[in-house]
């Protein structure tokens, strides 16, 4: 059975692809699979259940279960049989090949097949939503340019998906309280209790929306904008039946309990009557049929939700009958519209005379719909009447069913009159047209099936009997054409007579008379619901997301002050904790700290007041160098070294960017209250951080873990503990951090290089070499050329590079390491760039920055992976000892390789910044992409 569903999926893609040029061949080929499905189902009918199961996620109890039982056979005959006929019809209906529609129709048939066969609530839900999605495409795809089509498609999608989610919640409630999601197990042992009952109610809501029960029916008439084959298949035969199918499927478990039966009866009766009344007032023939479908689905809901044997028999028979009369009626409207260009009854006249075969087939279908013998509809309605002919409360239901039948008769007559009635307009097209046989034959086939199965209902009985038999003891009532004189036949006659009378009274006029009063209709309810959801979303967004970055930051800062800040103040006020150790506080550890702190704080405050961009950049560098000095005093030479290089590079980077920006900052526009609020928040935040720092440091109860790393580092043979932590003990952190750097490099390139493609080469050629100091001097980026700087660059560049390699190698034992080594190497290229411009940079760089960044990252990962090779963990260092002549024993650790990766990546980052923020921003061709592909 999984194969069958998959075959539909394959055919949905393959058939339109292979036969897309030949619309008729495509339509007929598409019909093969649904027809085969129906034939397979019939061949299996009467035998035992067929099951198949695919374990999907056994640990979660998820399995794709399929089961073919009696009810599934009935549905497959309907889905496959009508589907095949409709697909053949579509081959003649569409003027040009509709690949998307044909493929989606096959996919829909497959989803429907899966839905019917599913023996697991969650699998059923998946197929349920697949039918919803394909219906969205089918409704909207034919004329996506029309607003009405798009709205109808969205409405169908939203309504059925929203209630599908409700249904899913119900499935979960039912499944959890039963302990299984397998439907056959649920039916064998129905769960009780409040949760299961609530779940059943939610499932019913989903089924009501799918089967367009009042008041959730608004999407069905709106969906009539879809092409006729889609309407005939989805909105008569298949998709709307999914809801009543689910009710029929679960009725044996839940009908006897709680509110199941009252809900299905109430929804069914209301839909039956309201749908019939509205149908009686329609001029658009398709909308008339759509409301008729709402009405008929109400009857089906009523019958199949009842859970008794006779009602189930009647419901299953009507399920088939409805497919066999409503689908041809839709198809007939399609033919009429195809031939005359309109489907509005008040503009049609004499169609019946021009297309007599179609009119006959349509009349036969209507006869089945209104329940005339010997059609299948009659057989089903007899059984329906019989099911409720017990007196008591059922009498009210019975009265409703008869009233509904009368309305069916009335709108059936209105349909016939509207579609085929009236004198032929001889002047219009000169009498009888030849009937479009490709379109008429499918109508006739379906209508004839309704006639044949009514006259000889034994096959229907054998199809639906097994399902009904499971619901109760055999009462001796079977589907037959003639039960003898009795209550059912009498009520049928009453319904026919009353229906004819109603038709005569109100149903004959075209266009329908204006209504004096309106009930609130479902379309407006839907519009209102959508409108209010959108309005709510906008209201929330307007208030919460105001789009101002300072305000967002202020909120973040405010929250920091409000939550942890208040807690801190409260705790301090209570005197918790730190008072005892307050005596350990001292002004400074070393006198140098005092001087450096003054420098840092002074520069930071001056940067706050600065009005020029360049001076704030310089003050920032002052802060950085001062902080570096503090690091030295604190006993962190690695940090200080790194920070000093970073500060230098940052300053150069800032200056490179500031070339393109105005000298002064724009004036601050914020008002006085805003400034005060900002300043207050900032001051409070600074105070909070200081208080937090003091409290945290004084509250320490356990000894720091840091010194333990010193012991580990000694075991690893390294002397520089910080470097060993970075490359070895906590190398995974470092790997993550260099990955962040690589991403930042990519981001910089993306931001600077995005834009129009650069002009062809030539502009980049630059001026010829004019000085012997540099390899390829171009225009310096910042000022005129300087011989001193050029000479310095030439002389110092290699020295700096060599020093960076020393830093890299020495990192294990002395201050240094990959980060600072890479930064220092970057400095060498900065020194070449500043006097020589981008041409010099291009000559000096050993490779593309992108290669350096990616290669560095790859090398670091490879060094980590080498730990696996030696049987250890990822990033576990391996020490290699090589004895070389003259040099002696050389000891190399893979952590040096890792550090080399860091070195290359950092060098690549610096090179990236130089080539983008530096070289690419150089005038005149700011968007040059010499270095990056």
């Amino acid at each position, binding site marked *: 059975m999984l194969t069958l569903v998959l075959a539909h999926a394959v055919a949905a893609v393959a058939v339109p692809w292979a036969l897309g040029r030949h619309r008729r061949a495509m339509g007929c080929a598409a019909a093969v699979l649904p027809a085969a499905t129906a034939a397979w189902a019939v061949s299996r009918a009467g035998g035992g259940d067929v099951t198949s199961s695919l374990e999907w996620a056994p640990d979660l109890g998820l399995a794709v279960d399929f089961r073919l039982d009696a009810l599934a056979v009935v549905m497959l005959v309907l889905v496959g049989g009508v589907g095949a006929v409709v697909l053949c019809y579509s081959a003649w209906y569409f003027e040009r090949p509709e690949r998307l529609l044909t493929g989606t129709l096959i996919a829909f048939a497959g989803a429907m097949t899966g839905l019917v066969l599913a023996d697991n609530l969650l699998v059923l839900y998946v197929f349920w939503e697949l039918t919803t999605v394909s219906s969205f495409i089918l409704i909207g795809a034919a004329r996506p340019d029309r607003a009405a089509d798009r709205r109808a498609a969205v409405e169908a999608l939203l309504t059925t998906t929203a209630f599908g989610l409700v249904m899913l919640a119900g499935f979960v409630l039912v499944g959890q309280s039963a302990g299984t999601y397998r439907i056959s197990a649920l039916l064998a042992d129905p769960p009780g209790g409040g949760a299961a009952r609530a779940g059943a109610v939610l499932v019913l809501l989903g089924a009501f929306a799918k089967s367009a029960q009042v008041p959730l029916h608004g999407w069905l008439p709106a969906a009539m904008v879809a092409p006729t084959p889609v309407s005939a298949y989805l909105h008569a035969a298949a998709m709307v039946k999914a809801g009543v199918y689910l009710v029929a499927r679960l009725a044996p478990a839940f009908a006897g309990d709680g509110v199941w039966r009252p809900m299905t009866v109430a929804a069914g009766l209301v839909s039956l009557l*309201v749908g019939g009344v509205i149908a009686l*007032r329609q001029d658009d023939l398709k909308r008339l049929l759509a409301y008729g479908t709402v009405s008929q689905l109400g009857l089906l809901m009523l019958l199949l939700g009842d859970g008794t044997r006779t009602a189930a028999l009647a419901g299953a028979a009507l399920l088939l009958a409805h497919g066999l009369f409503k689908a041809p009626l839709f198809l007939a409207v399609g033919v009429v519209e195809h031939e005359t260009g309109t489907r*509005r009854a008040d503009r049609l006249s004499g169609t019946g005379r021009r297309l007599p075969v179609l009119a006959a087939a349509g009349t036969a279908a209507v006869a089945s719909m209104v329940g005339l013998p010997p059609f299948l509809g009659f057989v089903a309605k007899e059984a329906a009447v019989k099911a409720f002919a017990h007196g008591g409360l059922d009498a009210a239901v019975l009265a409703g069913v008869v009233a509904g039948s009368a309305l069916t008769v009335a709108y059936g007559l209105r349909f016939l009159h509207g579609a085929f009635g009236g004198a032929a307009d001889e002047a219009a097209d000169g009498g009888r047209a030849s009937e479009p046989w490709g379109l008429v034959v499918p109508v006739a086939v379906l209508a004839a099936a309704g006639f044949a199965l009514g006259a000889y209902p034994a096959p229907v009985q054998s199809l639906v009997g097994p399902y009904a038999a499971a619901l109760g003891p055999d009462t001796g009532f079977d589907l037959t054409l003639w039960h003898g004189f009795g209550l059912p036949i009498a009520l049928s006659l009453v319904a026919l007579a009353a229906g004819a009378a109603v038709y005569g009274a109100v149903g004959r006029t075209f266009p*329908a008379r204006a209504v004096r009063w*309106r009930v609130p209709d479902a379309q407006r309810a839907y519009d209102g619901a959508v409108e209010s959801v959108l309005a709510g979303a*906008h209201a929330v*967004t*307007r208030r919460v*997301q105001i*789009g101002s970055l*300072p305000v967002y*930051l*202020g909120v973040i*800062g405010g929250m920091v002050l409000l939550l942890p800040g208040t807690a801190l103040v409260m705790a301090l006020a209570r005197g918790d904790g730190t008072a005892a150790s307050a005596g*350990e*506080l001292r*002004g*400074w550890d070393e006198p140098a700290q005092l001087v450096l*702190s003054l420098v*840092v*704080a002074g520069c930071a*405050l001056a940067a*706050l007041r600065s009005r020029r961009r360049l001076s*704030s950049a310089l003050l920032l560098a002052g*802060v*950085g160098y001062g902080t570096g000095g503090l690091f030295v*005093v604190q*006993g*962190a*030479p690695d*940090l200080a070294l790194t920070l000093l290089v970073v500060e230098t590079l*940052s300053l150069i*980077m800032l200056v490179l*960017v500031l070339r393109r*920006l105005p000298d002064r*900052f*724009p004036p601050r*526009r914020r008002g006085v209250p805003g400034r005060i609020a*900002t300043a207050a928040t900032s001051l409070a935040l600074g105070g909070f*951080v200081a208080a937090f*720092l*003091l409290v945290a440091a004084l509250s320490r109860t356990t000894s*720091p*873990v*840091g*010194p333990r790393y*010193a012991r580990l580092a000694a075991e690893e043979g390294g002397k520089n503990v*910080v470097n060993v*932590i*970075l490359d070895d003990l906590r190398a995974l952190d*470092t790997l993550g*951090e260099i990955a962040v*750097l690589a991403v930042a490099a990519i981001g910089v390139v993306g*931001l600077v290089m995005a834009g129009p493609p650069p002009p062809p080469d030539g502009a980049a050629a630059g001026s010829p070499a004019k000085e012997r100091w540099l390899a390829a001097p171009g225009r310096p980026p910042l000022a005129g050329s300087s011989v001193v700087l050029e000479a310095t660059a030439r002389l110092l560049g290699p020295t700096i590079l060599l020093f960076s390699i020393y830093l890299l190698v020495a990192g294990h034992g*002395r*201050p240094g390491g990959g*980060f600072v080594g890479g930064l220092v190497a970057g400095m060498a290229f900065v020194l070449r760039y500043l006097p020589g411009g981008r041409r010099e940079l291009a000559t000096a760089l050993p490779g593309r920055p992108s290669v350096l960044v990616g290669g560095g990252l790859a090398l670091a990962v490879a060094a980590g992976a080498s730990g696996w090779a030696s049987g250890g963990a990822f990033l576990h260092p391996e020490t290699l000892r090589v004895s070389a002549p003259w040099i002696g024993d050389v000891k190399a650790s893979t952590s040096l390789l890792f550090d080399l990766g860091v070195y290359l990546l950092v060098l690549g980052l610096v090179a*990236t*910044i130089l080539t983008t*923020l530096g070289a690419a921003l150089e005038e005149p061709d700011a968007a040059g992409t010499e270095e990056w592909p």
Partner: protein
Amino acid sequence: MSGPALVLVAVVAVLFAAGFELLMQRSLIRVVVGFMLLGHGANLLLLIAGGAAGAPPLLGGPHRGRRMADPLPQAMALTAIVITFGVTAFLLALAYRSQLLLGEDEVQDDIEDRRVRAERRRRDELRAEDADPVEEGEAEGGGG
């Protein structure tokens, strides 16, 4: 255990306050400067939370009788410095891009959000358009 030196705590407070103040400004370069000040403050905070000044964490190095400083915060701060550098480069690229596209390096209010604020008016107009008859047969038949 000895706590941090007060003068360093004061420096951290100044760096955080100044950094946040600049971060709240609209000029992107000010934001970058504020971001870097915050970065310095955070690194310093990490470091002095690890304890008082001490000898460099080099095994076998000249300790001159002092206790070795805690190496772990130093390792954290070191990567933080380099990452701040990378992110600063990214922010500067953003500032450049803003200058290129908008002609100024100011942080603007988000255009999308501003449009959402003006949305109510626009939707009212849309609804007026939708109310126009779209197609024949659109008038809903009421019930009786």
